[in-house]
């Protein structure tokens, strides 16, 4: 009889996970949908590859330029955008980011080190890491071409930067997931965010008062923040390379040591989360909810709306309850305001601006925020049934038309978008200034056009290309590749068309013209929406088997 005498090694376990992922990929190609996913994935990868290679060439050229001119400390200017992209892209562009679920691995004889390594390695297989790593490679190449003896220092510094970024991204993800998982921590986080945005109302006047003289252009801004940024990982890495270029090898080694300490500190915080996950932590709402006193024996009647059938109202209520209990989804809903805040902090490259990106066109803050709000609804609108799991079967066993279910979901998503518009308007007003009435009306009429287009295509894709998602876990709300690809195309056309119309109206000082054009577009789009909705029943029944199979399959 064979005996279990040797514990499985980390390498074998990593290889086993890789093999499983490969086998899952191969098996997925058995269906037409799987093959379509592959084609979409290839197109998306090509898009990213273009960005990666372009960025690699740009970062290589920029690094070569600054090092060959003896300004190695200016490498920080390249490393900071890479750093921000690495950390922000997975949060901002959730449609392209997937959080690898390793919870199922816990049943196997996995040591903590194997578990942590698998979480970090496979969790990092996402576009932000790939692209940023390529760009760091470009920086290293540029440095090597400009000054070959500097390459070993640059290589070590950039490897440390990569490690810090990978660990930091994982750490942020895991802690945000932790905070968003339960209502109490979610509320605390929400209050902090609200205070933060409101505080900007106070910072804004100060910035506009002192900003003009303090940093009218990028160079003065950089001069001011240079000493501070040197203390942070991208600046530290640039300082280490600069010290090595100056022949101060001890200082360079010491600076790299600081970078290492950053990595260790970040890993310590990440380790706290990973250990909790390894010990089978339960992030459900149950403990918090169990504490609240519910009245036994009394069930509150469901929501109702005049003129809306009971089943539609019930699905609408269900959608809203799901959203209110999904920390990650609520988090993505505040992202449009967060983006405006990021723009406000970003220095302007223009001398005409008032010190920040959009500074000279602050009335565009509301349209940009509104367009982004529409973009982040993609995960919901284009994958209507994704969060239902096995519950989707009820729509086919209950005496309800599928188009009623879809209508209810569309109503819920439209309501969310309306609330988002209010939030973005308030955010834009606080962070910049209240948008002009003409801009507000043009933006709202633009949304009135973009919404039915998205709902129509979203309804079709929700049925033909569904993907099981998890509302409760951060980073597991991604739609299928086919959906992401198609929705991206729709957004480019719709937002592009809206932007051109609005800009044209704005440049002729006739923003109201854009409003009229959008309202005409909207009328056509709503007619198409209702025609498609009426005929969707047949399509839904034609796809019910794939829909149920996809949403009920094990993760």
């Amino acid at each position, binding site marked *: *009889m064979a005996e279990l005498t040797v514990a499985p090694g980390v390498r074998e376990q990593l290889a086993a996970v890789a093999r499983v992922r490969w086998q899952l990929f191969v098996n997925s190609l058995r269906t037409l949908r799987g093959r379509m996913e592959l084609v979409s994935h290839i197109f998306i990868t090509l898009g990213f590859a273009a960005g990666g290679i372009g960025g690699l060439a740009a970062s290589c050229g920029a690094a070569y330029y600054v090092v060959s001119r003896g300004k190695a400390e200016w490498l920080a200017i390249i490393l900071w955008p890479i750093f921000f992209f690495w950390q922000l892209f997975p949060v901002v562009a959730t449609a392209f980011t997937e959080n690898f679920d390793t919870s199922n691995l816990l049943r196997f004889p996995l040591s903590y080190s194997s578990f942590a390594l698998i979480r970090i390695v496979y969790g990092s297989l996402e576009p932000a890491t790939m692209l940023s790593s390529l760009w760091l490679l470009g920086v290293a190449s540029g440095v090597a071409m400009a000054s070959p003896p500097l390459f070993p220092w640059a290589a070590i510094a950039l490897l440390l930067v990569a490690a810090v970024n990978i660990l930091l991204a994982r750490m942020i993800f895991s802690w945000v997931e932790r905070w968003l998982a339960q209502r109490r921590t979610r509320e605390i986080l929400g209050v902090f965010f609200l205070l933060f945005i409101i505080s900007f109302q106070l910072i804004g006047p100060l910035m506009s008062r002192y900003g003009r003289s303090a940093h009218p252009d990028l160079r003065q801004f950089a001069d001011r923040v240079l000493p501070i940024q040197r203390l942070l990982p991208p600046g530290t890495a640039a300082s280490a390379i600069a010290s090595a270029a100056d022949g101060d090898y001890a200082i360079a080694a010491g600076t790299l040591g600081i970078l290492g300490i950053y990595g260790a500190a970040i890993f310590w915080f990440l380790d706290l989360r990973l250990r909790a996950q390894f010990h089978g932590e339960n992030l459900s709402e149950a403990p918090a909810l169990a504490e609240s006193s519910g009245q036994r024996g009394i069930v509150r009647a469901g929501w109702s709306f005049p003129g809306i059938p009971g089943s539609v109202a*019930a699905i609408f209520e269900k959608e809203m309850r799901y959203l209110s209990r999904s920390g990650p989804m609520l988090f993505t809903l505040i992202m449009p305001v967060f983006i405006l805040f990021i723009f406000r902090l970003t220095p302007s490259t223009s001398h005409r601006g008032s010190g920040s990106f959009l500074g000279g066109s602050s009335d565009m803050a509301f349209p940009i925020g509104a367009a982004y709000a529409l973009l982040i609804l993609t995960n919901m609108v284009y994958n209507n049934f994704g969060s239902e799991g096995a519950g989707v079967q009820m729509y086919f066993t209950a005496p309800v038309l599928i188009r009623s279910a879809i209508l209810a979901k569309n109503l819920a998503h439209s309501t969310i978008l309306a609330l988002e518009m209010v939030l973005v308007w308030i955010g834009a007003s606080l962070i910049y200034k209240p948008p002009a009435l003409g801009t507000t009306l043009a933006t709202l009429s633009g949304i009135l056009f973009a919404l039915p287009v998205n709902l129509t295509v979203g309804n079709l894709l929700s049925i033909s290309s569904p993907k099981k998602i998890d509302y409760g876990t951060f980073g597991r709300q991604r739609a299928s590749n086919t959906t992401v690809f198609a929705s991206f195309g729709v957004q480019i056309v719709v937002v592009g068309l809206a932007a051109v119309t609005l800009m044209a109206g704005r440049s002729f000082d006739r923003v109201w013209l854009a409003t009229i054009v959008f309202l005409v577009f909207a009328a056509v789009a709503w007619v198409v929406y209702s025609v498609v909705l009426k005929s969707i029943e047949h399509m839904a029944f034609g796809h019910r088997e794939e829909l149920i199979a996809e949403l009920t399959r094990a993760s």
Partner: protein
Amino acid sequence: MNSAAIATQGLTRRFGALTAVDDVNLRVAPGQFFGFLGPNGAGKSTTIKMLIGLLAPTAGRIEILGLDLAANSLEVKRQIGAGEVPEGMALFGRLTGAEYLNFAGRMYGLDRETAANRAAELLDFMQLADQPKKLVTDYSHGMQKKLALAAAVIHGPKILFLDEPFEGVDAIASGTLKVMLQSMIARGATIFLTSHVLEIVERLCSHLAIIHRGRLVAQGSLEELRAGVEAQAAAALPEDCAHAPAVPGEKLTLEEIFLRIVGGSRPVDQELSWLS
């Protein structure tokens, strides 16, 4: 097919080259507690999915309470309950039990107040009322089973379809479910149930059908099936006596009947010898 609660005619379902259900002609009379049995992969789940509208038949016809399912799907669905379906329970994990039952009630056309009142009654009956704020995703498997069953009956269906209702349910809950199902039968409902726990089926069901490799191989009351098997055994070769009752004169159990019909004993000696 008019007087039957459930009737199928030539029901067939193919998945590519595989015929999962092959020319099945079922007939379940109103008020019957009907057990639908078969080994794993025999076609039970495929059949039940077609009967509740989750899967389209490749060929054949389904009538529920005299109505053609394909032509009157909404009307038929109002009369049936199907909380526990083959592809996992049709639950919404991020609702509480009360919210889910309320939702289910309104999906089946109940008004807000009736749905809420019945949800409260069902939670109490199923002993799920003591944690009203707990999300369904945090329920134990047994609690989810009970909730799924509660959702299936909230609108008072005339026919109830159940797929493995007692799997993973504790003895106390199992007793509660049996009481509820038997009281439904007493009030004239029809129950169509699949289960691998043959003792429970034997105790509850008055009529049975057995499907094997996609084909219906037996159908009738338990006594009819028993008589058929015993008649076959009497005429069979001596080696078949291995399946005869252990004590002469005792009735064949459902398990013995099932094994006789589908075959299925295999020697386990010397297999998986590495298992400690």
